[in-house]
């Protein structure tokens, strides 16, 4: 179980390999990779700054993993979330879950992403052709969290 908040990029393949080779009982690994899009709410996005709350962020991400472990049979989980300046097509987040069976891995990974959208202290500021703006929280993300 591992949580990282970092400005640097990450390597999905390396993270999958480390988790996979940690146990011969793991049959299924599900990963989610988020990428910065060049378009949001009708505007072109040229860059984005991700602010967070050091200390609370790590605690919130660890709590999300603990909830996933309580809800599903999972062998391991990793969250890596980038902060700072990001450009379109930069990777922004990785959620990786390993399990004996695929259903648990899929459900736990999607659950963790929904929690991450609404329960971890990150804020995004976008640079668009119309200037800088803070990204507002989405009602659809809150709805996604509440279905679990």
């Amino acid at each position: 179980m591992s949580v990282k908040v970092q400005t640097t990029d990450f390597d999905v393949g390396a993270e999958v390999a480390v988790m996979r080779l940690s146990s011969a009982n793991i049959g299924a690994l599900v990963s989610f990779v988020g990428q910065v899009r060049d378009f949001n709410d009708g505007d072109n996005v040229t860059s984005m700054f991700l602010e967070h709350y050091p200390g609370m962020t790590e605690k919130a991400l660890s709590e999300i993993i603990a909830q996933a472990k309580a809800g599903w049979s999972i062998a391991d989980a990793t969250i890596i979330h980038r902060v700072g300046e990001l450009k379109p097509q930069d990777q922004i987040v990785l959620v990786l879950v390993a399990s004996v069976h695929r259903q648990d891995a899929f459900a736990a990974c999607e659950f963790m992403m929904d929690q991450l959208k609404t329960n971890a202290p990150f804020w995004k500021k976008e640079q668009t052709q119309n200037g800088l703006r803070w990204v507002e929280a989405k009602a659809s993300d809150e709805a996604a969290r509440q279905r679990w």
Partner: protein
Amino acid sequence: MTNLIKVLYFARLKESLNYSTEDMDLPAGVKTIAQLKDHLAKRGEAWATLFNGQQSIRAAINHALVGNDAIIKSGDEVAFFPPVTGG
């Protein structure tokens, strides 16, 4: 007797207030997050805009999300921020 706390502001709150962190001696009569919001709202126009009846401002005490009724104790780290947008 003093009740020293630390208060942090994030994202557009930090920008609007031009303020990211402060040490504060909790005033008499301020026991909860709601009461601290009311207290901060009296500091001036930018503060009033953010904290007057603003349900959308989230709060954390010691790195845990809390509601308006949460009790603030001496030594606590209190944070105010907009709804989060991670992932």
